[in-house]
Each structure stands twice: as structure tokens, then as C-alpha cells.
């Protein structure tokens, strides 16, 4: 009896440790043309040409700090899991990182509770002419993410509330991805709408009286919707290396474009590179 119990416990532990997993960020799943089920780690290397027209958001340059830039980018991204808990940092995702717990799943849907950082920190005060503007700390939303799979389509819905204690900010997102195969090429398209409540937009893009300068008038931001479209293609070079090319265009909401910290309506990122899959 005791021996049978021990064996049962042993197998239970084995099953729990080897249990397949978890929906990842849609950006990764749509690029690999399949749901992520076991975690991953990838080395990324690409040549990129991009623009984020927000002062101090990407890098600090003495002149034209939000003009297009380009160059070689390298990094690691991945998703790690333990039981039903996960941590992910996905290159090209709408979130800088996320961690949470997978609460439910069936053959076509998965639901996770998670914390995520969607905007991140940035430092407009380091740009000449904007020294009066305070640094913006990273955000952290707590919420729910549901992912639904149907043939070659993935829909991901997110709802998050601010968990930094800075207000009652809300983020809600809808993303739709479609992937298809053209011989050994894997193509994908992604369309996303992301709503940010006024509390969040104002924290990042508003200007209060203490920040006023010649460049920055007082500005109180309202809520807004960020629209994102992405198209990409990838082909395996062998079992470990994948060639990728990607184009992403973001249309910033009016409440962000009207900010003194923003210099254009559109943001974009074009890249071509290779990934190594560990």
C-alpha cells in the first residue's frame, strides 16, 4: 500500500514537472506559427531601422532625439515556466516583460493572470531643452490575458489595471494574428488595438506646471487607443537558426500626439536578422 502510494506520488510529480504549458505573448506565437507550449529561449540579432517619435523614449541624442535611427540590435528573449507560473520577455512584444500564472486552458483557449509592463520607463529630462521634464518610471499592470486559437488565427485579449499605486489606470487590448505557410516560409500578420485610460496617458505624456519650459507647455492628456499593424516572414536555416524579417507600424493616439513630448503621429520598426533557438 505504502509502495503504491509512493509510486503514485512519484508519477504525480513527474506529470507536474513535465506538464506542457502555457500561452505566450501573441507576438511570439504568431511568429512561430503555433502556440507556445513549453517555454523558449532565443538569441536575436537584427539590423533595424526604426522611429519612436517621443522625446527620450529610445535613446538620448543631442539633436533630433526622436528622428529615425538604425543599427545592429542583439539580445535574448524567451519565456520560462515553473509549474503554471511563467515569466516572459518577448522581443517585439507590446509588453516589455510579463509574469503570471496560467489559470485555465482547453484545446482552443488559455487564460492567464499576470503582471506586465507595457510602456516602460523613459527619460525625457536627459534631452537638451527638456531638462525640466521628470523621468517616467516603468508601469506595472495586473490583469487577465486570454488567448484563443482557431486554425491559423490567434486572438489575444488583455485587461489590466495599474498596480503601481499612481492612480486608477486601465489598459485593454485586442490583438488578432494570422499566419500562413508559403513553402518553407512562414508569414504572419498582426493587428492590435490597445486602449490606455487617461491616468496612464497623462502620467507618461502630460506636462505639469513644474515641468514647463520653452519646449513644454502644460498639457493634460486624455485616454487614447494605440493601433499596431505588423507583417513578418521567417524561414528556418536549420534546426537552430531562423532568418526573420519584420515590419511594424504604430499609429499613436491623439492624446499622445498632442503632447509636447511627441513629434509625430507614426512610429515604426523594420528589421531583418537571424535568431538562434536554444
Amino acid at each position, binding site marked *: 500500500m505504502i509502495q503504491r502510494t509512493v509510486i503514485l506520488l512519484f508519477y504525480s510529480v513527474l506529470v507536474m514537472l513535465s506538464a506542457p504549458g502555457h500561452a505566450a505573448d501573441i507576438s511570439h506565437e504568431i511568429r512561430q506559427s503555433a502556440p507556445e507550449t*513549453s517555454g523558449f529561449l532565443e538569441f536575436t540579432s537584427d539590423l533595424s531601422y526604426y522611429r519612436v517619435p517621443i522625446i527620450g523614449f529610445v535613446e538620448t541624442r543631442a539633436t533630433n532625439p526622436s528622428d529615425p535611427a538604425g543599427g545592429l540590435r542583439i539580445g535574448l528573449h524567451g519565456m520560462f515556466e515553473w509549474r503554471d507560473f511563467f515569466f516572459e520577455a518577448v522581443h517585439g512584444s507590446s509588453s516589455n516583460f510579463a509574469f503570471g*500564472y496560467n489559470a*485555465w486552458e482547453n*484545446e482552443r483557449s488559455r487564460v492567464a493572470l499576470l503582471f506586465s509592463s507595457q510602456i516602460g520607463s523613459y527619460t525625457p529630462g536627459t534631452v537638451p531643452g527638456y531638462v525640466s521634464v521628470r523621468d517616467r518610471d516603468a508601469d506595472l499592470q495586473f490583469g487577465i490575458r486570454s488567448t484563443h486559437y482557431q486554425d491559423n488565427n490567434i486572438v489575444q485579449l488583455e485587461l489590466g489595471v495599474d498596480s503601481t499605486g499612481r492612480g486608477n489606470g486601465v489598459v485593454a487590448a485586442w490583438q488578432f494574428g494570422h499566419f500562413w505557410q508559403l*513553402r518553407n516560409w512562414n508569414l504572419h500578420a498582426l493587428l492590435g488595438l490597445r486602449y490606455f485610460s487617461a491616468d496612464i496617458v497623462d502620467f507618461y505624456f502630460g506636462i505639469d506646471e513644474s515641468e514647463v519650459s520653452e519646449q513644454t507647455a502644460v498639457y493634460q492628456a486624455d485616454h487614447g487607443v494605440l493601433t499596431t499593424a505588423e507583417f513578418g516572414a521567417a524561414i528556418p536555416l536549420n534546426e537552430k537558426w531562423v532568418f526573420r524579417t519584420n515590419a511594424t507600424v504604430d499609429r499613436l493616439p491623439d492624446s499622445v500626439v498632442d503632447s509636447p513630448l511627441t513629434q509625430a503621429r507614426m512610429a515604426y520598426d523594420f528589421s531583418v536578422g537571424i535568431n538562434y533557438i536554444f
Partner: protein
Amino acid sequence: MTARLSGLLLALLAVLMCKPLIADDIDLTATPDKCVAMRKGQICYQHVTVKWQGLGAGRYCLMLDKQVTALHCWDNNNSGTVQYPFESAENLHFTLVAADLPSVALARTSVIVAWVYNSKSRRRSTWRLF
């Protein structure tokens, strides 16, 4: 005891006789011998060159596993090459046979399908509590 030994020898002989005759000096190759798809289960596409040599002149045929008709046949040749447009989600095996004895494999080679991402099946509906 003797009867049992005889039975074993007979069984061994039967197994040896049933085993396809594959000569070591016949060279049958597929190049490339691996096709890599993005994920498990996808159809993989590859232009494959299948070559053979090392036989006396004769009529030989290249067979693809699970297919009744020959992929290609050569008349009075001692070597051959054929281009094959590989399209498969699974490994494929090529077999060289004599045209007048197609059930006997003279040589075999394979093209393996590999993949980058191993997409496993997901669990059935489950609610989990902390």
C-alpha cells in the same frame, strides 16, 4: 531439446531470408538528406537529388515508400540521378530495386524531416487553483 534448437534455427533462417538484401557496395544517396520546417507537423519543401551507382548494367527503378509505382526507372544503366520535389511532413524513404524483382531492395536512403519549434499538443480543459 534438439527439437527446440531446430525450431530456433529454422526461425532464424526464416528471418534472414525475409530480410531485404541490401548490398554494401551500392551507393544510393539523397542530397540534402534533411528538410527543416518551422514547426513539427508542417509540410517541408526541398529539392532533393537522388543518386545511385555501383551496380552492373541493368534495368533499375527508384521506389518511394508507400507508393506502388516507381518514381523513376533506368534502362541498361549502372548509375542514375533524379531530381525529386520533396514535400512531406514526415521522413521519406527511397528504395532502389531491380525492375524485374521490385520486392527486393538493393539499397535504401532517407530524407529526414526536422523542425525548429516542437509544438506539443495542449491539455484538455482544466481549472487549476493555487
